[in-house]
């Protein structure tokens, strides 16, 4: 006898059996209704609360992360601003030292020029001798008409001659004096020019200093804004950091490409040096050595940039005393040059090995040995590339520093975004759980609606009987008839809904 047969065999009529079973099932579900409602509500609230708490703690972490990001951003930006101001002060210092160092000399030079000018000018003030005043008198005497007396005639002739001579002499003296004055004034001209030039130079220096001072003012304003941690400043800095992150990322990708080219230049000839058959792990030793050489070059480049104080990834290098730092510059530069030379030689060797391999390949496939390339340009090109690439890779330190610094911020922003998304998902799960519980309860009630309907009918009948017999007050009647269990629960549910929405 199967389960169905036994199930339907409780009466002679299967339909009746089904009805009995259905009735029993509905009765069981009706009696289990309240515990089921409580269990489902409790479970859904448990999920909702757990998710809400988790979401709150995630949001708290996100807030902390955002705060930390802000602090990092401000700290980085302050450092940058300080660097800029420091650099401007350095420039001003250089300009002031350069210009004011020569100031005593300049002062002396100007004083000398001015003294000389004064002297010359004073000399030009000497008025040329004027013509004698007695000329008019003598002229009058010379114009006296004589009556033929030879003595008087001689005397007048003498006076006329003397007068002419005196006149000529006075004109000569006047001309000489004027010429001297002109020559003195001519001498003054270049001195004036010199003085003017000196004053213009001083003016230019002062203007440059003024410009620098304005620049510093601008930087200081920016610095103050960052210090004040205004939202505007933070927004600007964030966008600036994102830009830096992407640009430095692009440049690093380019540098990565250069490193790969570099690697390909030296990997094959390395097998000639360290052997082509040895392996480190699953990798050929020659490949690993090639990679190590490139990494060493990168490290040297990094140290060089640090020593030059262009980057600040290793504060210990930047804070070294100048003597030691300069030694380090020379050391790293020498090592880089040696490595570049080695790479260049390897590039040459690579060309030879590749040509040899190609010849062998041609022989093996039965083709006549091809003519060797007559031009040396590819070989020279490879050698130049081998020499230049290590130095070019040195500059990777700059975008690398920028990338590392900005990636802190970007990772923080991405992390905060992820946390926000997690919090949202958690809240969504919590709310879904809560409403799923309500949905299950509603479905349950829908499934046993005949019993609930029956309950409503019975309760209303009981209430009407009580009204007739006891004349119960209206309020009690309404309370009992209008507030069956389901309605009460619905009301509670609505309250809960409102509460959750406000939360």
């Amino acid at each position: 006898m199967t389960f169905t047969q036994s199930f339907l065999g409780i009466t002679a009529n299967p339909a009746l059996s089904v009805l009995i079973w259905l009735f029993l099932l509905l009765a069981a579900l009706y009696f289990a209704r309240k515990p089921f409602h409580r269990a489902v509500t409790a479970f859904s609230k448990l999920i909702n609360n757990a998710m809400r708490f988790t979401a709150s703690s995630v949001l708290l972490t996100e807030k902390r992360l955002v705060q930390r990001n802000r602090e990092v951003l401000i700290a980085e930006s302050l450092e940058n601003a300080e660097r800029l101001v420091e650099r401007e002060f350095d420039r001003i210092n250089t300009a002031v030292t350069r210009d004011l160092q020569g100031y005593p000399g300049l002062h002396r030079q100007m004083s000398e020029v001015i003294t000389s000018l004064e002297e010359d000018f004073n000399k030009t003030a000497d008025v040329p001798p004027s013509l004698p005043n007695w000329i008019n008198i003598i002229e009058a005497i010379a114009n006296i008409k004589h009556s033929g007396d030879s003595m008087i005639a001689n005397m007048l002739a003498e006076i006329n001659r003397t007068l002419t001579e005196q006149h000529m002499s006075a004109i000569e003296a006047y001309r000489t004096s004027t010429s001297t004055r002109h020559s003195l004034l001519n001498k003054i001209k270049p001195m004036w020019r010199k003085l003017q030039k000196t004053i213009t130079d001083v003016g230019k220096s002062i203007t440059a200093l003024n410009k620098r001072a304005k620049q510093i003012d601008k930087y200081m304003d920016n610095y103050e804004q960052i210090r004040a941690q205004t939202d505007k400043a933070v927004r600007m800095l964030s966008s600036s950091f994102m830009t830096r992150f992407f640009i430095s990322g692009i440049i690093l990708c380019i540098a990565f490409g250069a490193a790969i080219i570099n690697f390909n230049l030296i990997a094959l000839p390395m097998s000639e040096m360290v052997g082509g058959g040895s392996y480190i792990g699953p990798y050929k030793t020659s490949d690993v050595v090639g990679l190590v050489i490139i990494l060493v070059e990168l490290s040297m480049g990094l140290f060089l940039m640090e020593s030059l104080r262009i980057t600040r990834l290793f504060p210990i290098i930047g804070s070294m005393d100048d003597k030691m730092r300069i030694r380090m510059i020379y050391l790293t530069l020498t090592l880089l040059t040696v490595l570049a030379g080695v790479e260049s030689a390897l590039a040459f060797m690579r060309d030879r090995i590749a040509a040899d391999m190609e010849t062998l390949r041609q022989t093996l496939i039965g083709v006549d040995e091809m003519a060797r390339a007559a031009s040396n340009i590819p070989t020279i090109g490879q050698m130049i590339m081998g020499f230049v690439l290590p130095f070019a890779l040195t500059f990777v330190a700059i975008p690398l520093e920028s990338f590392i610094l900005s990636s802190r911020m970007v990772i923080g922003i991405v992390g905060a975004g992820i946390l926000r998304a997690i919090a949202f998902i958690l809240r969504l799960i919590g709310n879904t759980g809560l409403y799923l519980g309500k949905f299950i309860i509603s479905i349950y009630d829908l499934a046993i609606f005949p019993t609930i309907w029956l309950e409503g009918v019975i309760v209303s009948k009981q209430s009407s009987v009580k009204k007739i017999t006891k004349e119960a007050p209206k309020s009690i009647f309404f309370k009992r008839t209008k507030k069956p269990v389901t309605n009460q629960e619905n009301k509670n549910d609505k309250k809960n809904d409102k509460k959750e929405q406000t939360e």
Partner: protein
Amino acid sequence: MKKTVVFIIAFAVILTGCADTKKHSKGVYMLLDSSDTYALELKTAQSIINYLLGTLQPMDTLAVASIDTGSFSEKDIIAKVTFYQRPSVANNQKRAFQKKLDKFISNVKSSRYTDISGGILQAIEYLNEADTGKKYILIFSDLKEELKKGHVRDVPFQLTGFNVIALNVTKLRANIRDPIKYMERVEQWGKIIESCNGEWRVVNDLERLDNIFAE
């Protein structure tokens, strides 16, 4: 600090320990059938050997031996070489190897019998001595073994770690009439090799020689 020192020492030990040449090296032993029925195919073998010479790397081992009446002998090895670790030297070794092979193939004399089992035994011995990381025995033959009376070859092969690859297994005249015999022949060799823990493959398409070293 202590942890750092331990890490550095461990890293150095791993590096030195892993600088292994034998593990990655290949050992190839090629058997050339010079029997009456197959001697004409030896020209094809030349291109296979050239392919091997072009493919094998420094520190790999290559040996070519002929299959004749009694192949379990060092005398049957035509040429053998372990390529030097410097590619330029290895290239010169390859050239010399090719010349030797060319000379052999142009002067080869066909044999009456085909001792494939003896050749395999010799190959196992040679490659085990060479101690290479991967071992390949290439059998360039129609796989029809004909042993001279008195030769005992029912010795089990120790083929663990060996790849045995039959190349250019040609069909005999009788096989054209009755292909089952050809299939049985190939299958029988496969069973023998696999029963001795070896890997068995057949590569008849010589345009796809890269399948030889395919894992």
